[in-house]
């Protein structure tokens, strides 16, 4: 771990990874939450994937 932090330009590199993880994570959570919210209002027979 210390080796990772000791990289040259660690801030930029870890920043790129952090941005990727945060953006994708929040997008995925948003999609899942929206699906759960709308899924509660619809009967399972109407969902083509069930």
């Amino acid at each position, binding site marked *: 771990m210390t*080796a*990772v932090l000791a*990289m*040259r*330009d*660690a801030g*930029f*590199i*870890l*920043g*790129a*990874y952090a*941005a*990727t*993880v945060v*953006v*994708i994570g929040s*997008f*995925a959570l948003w*999609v*899942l939450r*929206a*699906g*759960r919210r*709308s*899924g*509660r*209002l*619809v*009967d*399972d*027979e*109407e*969902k*083509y*994937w*069930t």
Partner: protein
Amino acid sequence: MTPTTSPQPTARRATGTRATRVLGIVTLVMLGWLLLFGLVLSPADIDQGDAVRIMYVHVPTVWLAYLAFIVTAVCSGLYLFGRRHSLGFDRVAGASAEIGVVFMALTLISGSLWGRITWGVYWQWDARLTTTALLFVTYIGYLAVRGLEGTRERRARRSAVIGLLAVVEIPLVHWSVRLWRSLHQEATILDTDLDVDIDGLMLFTLFSGVVAFTLLFVWLLLHRTRTIALDDLLASRGLDRAIAERRSEVTSSGSIGGGS
């Protein structure tokens, strides 16, 4: 369509199934694997140093973004020219474009951070970069068009046309930007920098990245498409209910021609 007052409401599941759950877990494992290899186990590049690590997220996101836009274009075509005009294709097109825009944004972020390390500047007016930025904005426009009001079919048809127009316009944009840069480029910095002499472990890491992000794309696409389907269902149900209410109003007041 059954109205909301169905006698026995069933389990009310979200957009997940056993298959997507397995896929999601595999995706998470692969992403963790990518972090491990990308940040820790893979070596630094001889020329680029540690900056090459950014490539392991940058390259997969840009590939998947392009793939997402291709999926959007293909599904737009299938919707428009398919015999059944299945709204399913429209949903996949919309979901894919959204994911593509997210991935493209990540590509631009990680790319500019890489550029800051390697070139000393965040942005270069290189043909590839410029086209990518324009592509990004074009699909933001596409998503804006998807958000316009109208009946479901009209929205789908309109979006499909915009999605296919992008296919005509993007190559022209790319061509013009390339002509522009080829005449004015002082030094070809980019061409040498990206053809790094990749060693085995680095190639493996890049490959893991592509696999991880492909799985992620499929997982996101499945969930997002289903969410859109749910929203469509709810929207049409809301409309049905509004019509039913209006009708009962009219019959109870006893005047059929009384409405506006």
